[in-house]
């Protein structure tokens, strides 16, 4: 029989909103990697002495650095939110016959996130 195979255009993900959101979620990883490289450069500058490090830290005040940080922050926050929201799909817990509510599982991760953020800020900033 002559069946017809419909082609899948490479732009399939533009067809529906959930697919676009999926693609944005996947592309947050590029910003994650970008920030990894930023951290790596920061540590590398440490090895280059006080002047190199000082210049690098001064450059953080430039508008382009701030803008890039803000864009990265937006994407990384999207990563964080989508990541935590999917945790109940993977961590399926039961108390007897009752499934532990999905909101409780995700909520635990959000609470952990707040705690981790406070600890990181405290350690890094030393306040």
């Amino acid at each position, binding site marked *: 029989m002559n069946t017809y195979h419909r082609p*899948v255009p*490479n732009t399939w*993900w533009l067809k529906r909103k959930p697919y676009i959101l999926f*693609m944005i979620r*996947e*592309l947050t*990883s*590029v910003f*994650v*990697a970008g*920030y*990894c*490289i*930023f*951290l*790596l450069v*920061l*540590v*590398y500058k*440490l*090895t280059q002495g*006080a002047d190199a*490090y*000082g210049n690098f*830290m001064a450059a*953080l*005040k430039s508008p382009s*650095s*701030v803008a*890039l*940080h*803000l864009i*990265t*922050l937006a994407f*990384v*926050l999207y*990563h*964080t939110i989508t*990541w*935590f929201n999917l945790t109940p799909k993977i961590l399926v817990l039961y108390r007897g016959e009752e499934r532990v509510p999905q909101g409780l599982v995700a909520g635990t991760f959000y609470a*952990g*996130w707040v705690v*981790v*953020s406070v600890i*990181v*800020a405290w350690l*890094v*900033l*030393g*306040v």
Partner: protein
Amino acid sequence: MAKSNEPIWWSLFSAGGMVAAMMFPILIIITGILVPFGLVGDDPLNFERIRDAVSQPLVKLILFTIISLPLFHWAHRFRFTLVDVGLKSVSTLISILCYGGAIVGTIVSAVVFWTI
């Protein structure tokens, strides 16, 4: 059917995703907003303080993990993103480039931390 080695990449992806989700927002707020705008007192990221901190083996190990694992998170996600947008025919090359990139990044950061 061939035994898959995907579990190793998937675990690194998951671990890296968790590290990035938990820690990157606050770190970005610190290096992108709080420090440049001077909102947190007198230069808390000054050279001496940070160098002394990063010289400690435990801090080195933690920072190394924070840099390396999310690189693998990127590698795994980006690999599949490229496949999804139609590059399936070169999927092996994509895997090599993505995971290779994460491995190179990991080695470079290991060397950098070693030399501090």
